[in-house]
Every structure is written in structure tokens, then in C-alpha cells.
């Protein structure tokens, strides 16, 4: 896909997210919107190897949504790509659905259960280590929230990955500068975040997390790097991106739009 096509796709994905959350009145809309562009580039921008008809294909690249609460964005993409029927999205959070508020590995295309923050990078490191032990060519990608980086276990995993020279591991941090109820720099400052990763032995990049071109430029070469270090991409994003009144507003971590707000959001997320 071209950058322009991916931008249109991302806008369409955000609209689906909006409708799912509005209908079920469940979900974390702000964080789903902040990482939508990243996920779009990962899945539509020729960055990862996968086959929706064979979710367990041994040579596939692995993707871990460590910030599991943003799963609605992932569900839309997996359904759109054909990992499971698109109609399944209508069952989101309804009794008996396979699609819950945090992803689990029974969903085709989901590698591991996530939801509790600070687990995904360690799991991804284990997968990358197994790939390295077995001389497999797959790359493991993990998407973390920036608030998630408050968890000590993230840094345990960061140390481990650097020590084992897991060059087949790529972490992306959705740096939307918010956690659930606050701004990260106001409650437990993370800056300078790239320096922290660098000092832990990671190759570090910082990109505009809403520029399809910038994300793709960082991610596409990630599978074939000459470095023997793991790579982290700090993607600077805006929580609630795409809907004006949600952007950078802490009320929309898991706010549910309705009434006039929903109308405005729909208008802003309508494809021209």
C-alpha cells in the first residue's frame, strides 16, 4: 500500500473502532486511536510476514500487542485481513464472544494473552530467543504503551533482550504521553525515554507515530538489520488521534462516546 492508501485505511479502521466501542459501550478508545497508524503500517505496509489463512505458519513474524487494552484496533485489522470473519466484530464483548476487552491467543492472529501491562516484551523476548536458538528467520514485534514503561518488568525484559543480542526483536513504544488517568510527565516522568532504552543496550529510533512514511521507513528495514542489538522505535503519537475532542484529553482513555459526541466523531472519521 502507498502511504496515502494506508492513511485512508487507518481512517477507516478508526471508524470501525468507534462503532464497535459505541455499540458495546466497552473498550479503550484513546489508546486504540493512538496506535492505529502504527498497526496499519505493520500489517498493510509490508513490514511483517504473515498469512491470514495460516495463522500458525511457523515462519510467520510474531506480533505481541503488549498494550492489550488497544485490542479493538488489532481486531479490526485481523478481521479485515481475513484471520477471522469480519462479521465476528459485531460480537465484540457480547456474551460468549471470542473478542474480549483484552486479546487472547484463541483469536486467530493473536500470539499471546495480554492485558496486564509489562508482560508482552518478556514474552516477545522468549519468542525471539527461541527463534535465535532454532536459527529461524522470523522477527518478533511488540507494541508497548508508554505508560506501560512504568512497569519494572519492561526493563527486566529490556536488559534480557540486549544481553542475548536479540536482533530479531523489535519493540515499538506508543508514546502518546498519557497513562490511564494522567499525563506521564506529570505523574512519573519517562523523558528522556529514548535515552533510557539506549542505555539498556537497544538501537533506538524516534519517529512521528502518525506519519505513515516515517513509520514505514523505520519498520520496513527492521527485519534485515546488520546490528546485533534489539531495536526500539519510539513512536510519538497523540492519544485519541483522529477525533478532535478526544486528542490528548485524558478523559478518553476508556471514555465511550454517545449522542452529539458520537455524531461528531463519525463525521470526523468519515472517508471522503
Amino acid at each position, binding site marked *: 500500500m502507498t502511504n496515502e492508501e494506508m492513511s485512508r485505511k487507518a481512517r477507516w479502521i478508526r471508524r470501525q473502532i468507534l462503532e464497535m466501542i459505541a455499540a458495546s459501550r466497552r473498550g479503550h478508545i484513546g489508546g486504540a486511536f493512538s496506535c492505529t497508524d502504527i498497526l496499519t503500517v505493520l500489517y498493510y505496509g509490508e513490514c511483517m510476514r504473515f498469512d491470514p489463512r495460516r495463522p500458525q505458519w511457523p515462519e510467520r513474524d510474531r506480533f505481541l500487542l503488549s498494550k492489550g487494552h488497544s485490542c479493538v484496533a488489532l481486531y479490526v485489522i485481523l478481521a479485515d485481513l481475513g484471520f477471522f470473519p469480519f462479521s465476528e466484530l459485531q460480537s465484540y464483548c457480547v456474551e460468549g464472544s471470542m473478542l474480549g476487552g483484552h486479546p487472547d*491467543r484463541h483469536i486467530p492472529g493473536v500470539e*499471546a494473552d495480554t492485558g496486564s501491562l509489562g508482560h508482552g516484551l*518478556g514474552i516477545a523476548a*522468549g*519468542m525471539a*530467543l527461541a*527463534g535465535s536458538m532454532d536459527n529461524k528467520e522470523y522477527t518478533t514485534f511488540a507494541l508497548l504503551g508508554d505508560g506501560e514503561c512504568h512497569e519494572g518488568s519492561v526493563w527486566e525484559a529490556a536488559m534480557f533482550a540486549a544481553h542475548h543480542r536479540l536482533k530479531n526483536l523489535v519493540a515499538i513504544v506508543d508514546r502518546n504521553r498519557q497513562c490511564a488517568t494522567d499525563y506521564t510527565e506529570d505523574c512519573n516522568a519517562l523523558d528522556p525515554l529514548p535515552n533510557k532504552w539506549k542505555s539498556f543496550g537497544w538501537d533506538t529510533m524516534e519517529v512521528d507515530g502518525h506519519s505513515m512514511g516515517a513509520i514505514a521507513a523505520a519498520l520496513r528495514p527492521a527485519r534485515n538489520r546488520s546490528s546485533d542489538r534489539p531495536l526500539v522505535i519510539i513512536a510519538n503519537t497523540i492519544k485519541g488521534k483522529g477525533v478532535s475532542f478526544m486528542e490528548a484529553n485524558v478523559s478518553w482513555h476508556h471514555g465511550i462516546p454517545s449522542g452529539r459526541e458520537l455524531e461528531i466523531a463519525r463525521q470526523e472519521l468519515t472517508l471522503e
Partner: protein
Amino acid sequence: MVSSLANIDIRDAFFDSLYDIAKEDRNVVFLTADMGARSLDKFKADLPGQYSNVGIAEQNMVSVAAGLSLSGKRVFIYAIAPFVTQRCYEQVKVDISGMNLPVTIVGIGAGISYTSDGLSHHATQDVAVMRALPNIAIYTPADCQSASMTAFLSYKSDGPTYVRLDKGAYPVLYGKQERFTLGIAELKKGKDVLIISTGIMTHQALTICDELTKRGMSPGVADLYRIKPLNCQAVLDLLGSYSRIVTMEEHSIVGGIGSAISELLTDHGICDKPLKRVALDDANCKGYGDRAWVHLQHGMDVNTVTQMILQWSATKGN
């Protein structure tokens, strides 16, 4: 019973067995959170590609184990028991139990094995918290034979296992023919009181049994080497011939095997078999001393338990 292994350290028996397994199956991976054992040295030396010290980082060790397991590895993780169960409990809950992965969690230092190291190093709530997690089998070997077989059973398991390992050499209780599939073994058959014990407390139970026998009683001893899944039918079958039950464990009285047996009796409506639970009081470390001293403080020593059973048996009812 006929012993087939020399009287070796329980921990060494487990790791020697695991070494043999790992040598045959290069998919076996061993992670340690900076904990060693003499018997692990040859594992590390001979199978370096299957051994990794992840440092003092139990949370990450559990998540890495999950990632390895999801990639087809047979993973064993190892640290001091409270650290590999409680420090990383949430990772065990979500990553191991939640995904039902065949990862074996090996905790060294059952109960108060790390005696004078105090509260932080005591595993006295581990059974309670691990028992609350679905899917996880819990083993507490009492001798080198059961420890050796536990390595094999956990390797073969389709789901997660927690092995509560003790240190030290104890008399061998089982013969080589024992397959350890029942979950409980009646080591001494009796008629009036049955002591159900786990781990090294089984040796204490056998000593108490001898004392009670000298005083004219006919006690039995059953070793509950697998705490979960509890083989309810096997336990019920054992209870049939006894009139009273005592449980013995080096664990808090809250949530251990005493609780498990009590739940079993309640769930099956068994009201005619009174139960006494011998365990550590619901209290933090009462001071520093050796294991025998701690047992004395908690009324778990041979003399106190023997007297308790004698007096109890002389009364009617509970």
C-alpha cells in the same frame, strides 16, 4: 519399600533426572533466576545452549518462559520458592496458568527450608496461592525417588507444574516401580488415625506414627506428593478405613493441604471423620533457629503432635 536410588539430596535427584531428560531432548530449556545447585553445574557445562541465568528477575523469567513455550520449547524455571511463585505471581497467573502452558516452575526451599533466612525466604503461603490458579499441578516430593520422577512427570505434562522442592537427603520412601500417578501413597497402613502429610513432613509423620504405635495405637501415614490436582477418589478410598485424620505440612495453616483435605470432606458431606490440621500458625516468622526449633514454636514437633493425637484419640468426637 525397596529403594532404588541411593539416599541422595532431593534437589540433586530432581536435577539429575532433568539433566538426563534435557540431554535427550534438546528442546528442553532451563532458566534460573540466579539460583544454582551443585547438580546443575553439569547441566550448565554440558548443555550450555539449553541453560540460561536470567539474573535476579523472576517476572521477566516467567514471561520469557511463556514466549519460549509458545515457540515449542519445554521450559523449566528455577528460583527460591517464594520468589518464583509470589514475586512473579501475576506473570504466573496470566502468562503460564492463563495460557495453560507446559512450563515447570521449580521452587527450591519448601516451607521453612531456609530456616534462619527468615520470612522473605520462607515458602509458607506458596501452596495456598498456587493452588488457587487453574491448570497448575503441584508436587512436593518427600524423597529422592519421588523427586526424580517428578522431573519426568512435569516434563511429560501438557500443562504447567509447580514443584516445591526441598533440600537435603532423607530416607528413601519409594521403590523404582512407583509411577507416582495416584497423587497419594499410603506408606503405613493403620486403622484409627490417618496422618496425611506432604514433603519432608512425611518423615516426621512416620516418626510420630512409630511413637503412636508404641503407645498402642494403629496409625497410618499417607504421603500426598501431588497436592493438585487432588485425587479425591484416592483420598476418599484411603479415608474409608480410618476414624480420624491429621494433616501435616510445613506451610501456613491457611490454604495448604489441611485446607484442601478439609474442602474435600466438606464437599463430599463427610461429617464423621474429625480432622486436625498441623501446620505453621497464621503468623509471620517467630524468630530465628533451625527447623526443629521452628517446629517446636508451632507445635509441629514429634512430641507435641504425638501428645495431641493421643489426647484427641482418647476423647469422643472432635
